[in-house]
């Protein structure tokens, strides 16, 4: 890879879905109404299965905590006409708000829902990896707030060496579109991306409709 690329690590197998990370992010950045830079998706699936003479439920669910994945190939950055989206030396994808004209084309191009429109400012916003905290030697607010310690950060290459390359768990898309800088330890019931038997159970809670 060569260049430095910071990445998130998320242990889905131990996540309790408490959404403290989501709240901590919102609290730290004081993000506007409807904006969730980090969102916890409730993925669910299953059906009734026949067990002898009885039909029994075979349902399963797990959580995926997701912010911007600061992708290696960020489609948002490539699509922005104004060059308002940049990738810094740590591989963090950032928005320069004073260059954003609010066309929202980046929003269409991001398969992780990371780009979120702030109606009050009239510009796009997104996860900054808490770069101000990083400069102080601290970790992002979502990570330090997590009571289950399922979130962490590190160099993408090192995380992949330690945990293996796992970055397309449902409801994530296939990784080849953007090469997301994230490693997910899958839940035992996890399904792969583009699985047609599963659904997101808390869409109303997480969607940004601004």
């Amino acid at each position, binding site marked *: 890879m060569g260049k430095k690329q910071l990445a998130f690590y998320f242990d889905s197998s131990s996540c309790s879905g408490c959404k403290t990370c989501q709240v901590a992010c919102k609290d730290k950045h004081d993000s506007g109404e409807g904006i969730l830079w980090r969102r916890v998706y409730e993925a669910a699936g299953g059906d009734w299965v026949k067990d002898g003479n009885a039909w029994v439920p075979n349902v399963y669910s797990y959580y995926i905590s997701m912010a911007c994945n600061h992708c290696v190939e960020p489609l948002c950055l490539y699509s922005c*006409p104004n*060059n308002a989206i940049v990738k810094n030396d740590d591989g963090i994808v950032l928005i320069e708000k004073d260059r954003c*004209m609010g*066309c929202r084309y980046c929003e269409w191009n991001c398969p*992780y829902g990371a780009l979120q429109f702030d109606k009050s400012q009239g510009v796009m916003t997104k996860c900054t990896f808490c770069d101000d905290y990083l400069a102080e030697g601290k970790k992002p607010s979502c990570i330090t707030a997590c009571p289950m310690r399922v979130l962490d950060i590190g160099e993408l290459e090192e995380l992949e060496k330690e945990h293996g390359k796992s970055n397309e768990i449902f*409801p994530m*898309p296939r990784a080849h579109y953007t090469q997301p800088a994230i490693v997910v330890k899958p839940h035992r019931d996890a399904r792969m991306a*583009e699985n047609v038997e599963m659904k*997101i159970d808390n869409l109303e809670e997480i969607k940004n409709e601004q």
Partner: protein
Amino acid sequence: MNSNEWPLVFFTLLSQMTAGIIIISFIVGLFVRNSELLSDFELKRNYFFVSLVLMVIALAISFFHLSAPLQSVFALANLQTSWLSREIFCMSMFTFLIAVCCAAVKFGIPGISGLPYWHIAAAFTGLLLVWIMARLYMIPIVPAWNNYATMIGFFTSIFLLGGVALLVILVVTGGKSFPFDQLKPVMWALIVVVSLAVVAKLLNVFLFQSGISFTGGSLPPPEAPFSWHVIHVIFFVAGFFLLAYWAYSQMQHTELYRPQMVYLSFALLFVSEIFGRAIFYALYYRLGM
């Protein structure tokens, strides 16, 4: 469909209709070249001025889509990878070339008197603009858009709206005194162009359907209101048959036959295209989250 996408509906339709007027007028001009009809047709070059007004309106509408329009000064900063940047550049070039054509017709400015060359340049840029527009929407993670139905749909709008708009301009410009009897080849050419666009539009329905029926997304596929589909189809059928009836009747007459029918047909087809485009935007959904 987000409310902020309505300006895009009108912007794309108006700019595609303008591209159609410029391209088709050039093609028709080729057909009638070296004949006495040329002077009749070329004297009535109002379509350049109408095109310029349409592009200015389209550009103005496009700003309503932006929440920070003052930052659009940076919009050409990413020609290297952004289709939107390329679209804005091409649209600016297209508008500029139409303005040059207008200047050449109106003022006969020395140095730009070679109108056909500017017309060729404008027509080519118009084609390029619509191709770039289609590529802009063919986003890899958007299954409903990322197929050739988008490309065909946009080019269909060029020839459908552009063809009928040119007919309207011809009728409005000519009035009763216009030599419609002599201009039958021109009108036939326009009718053929519009008919081909209609056939392409009908065939494209199946291609578009394959895109929206993709089932691998984690988000539920959106739906456009049923009433939009009804208006889209009914207005389209009514507009096309009215136009066909008028064309048939006009062929039997030497003078202009009931121009109101052409205006009404144009209005019906334009409204149909508005709802068709709104359905296109409403069916946006992406793979992933």
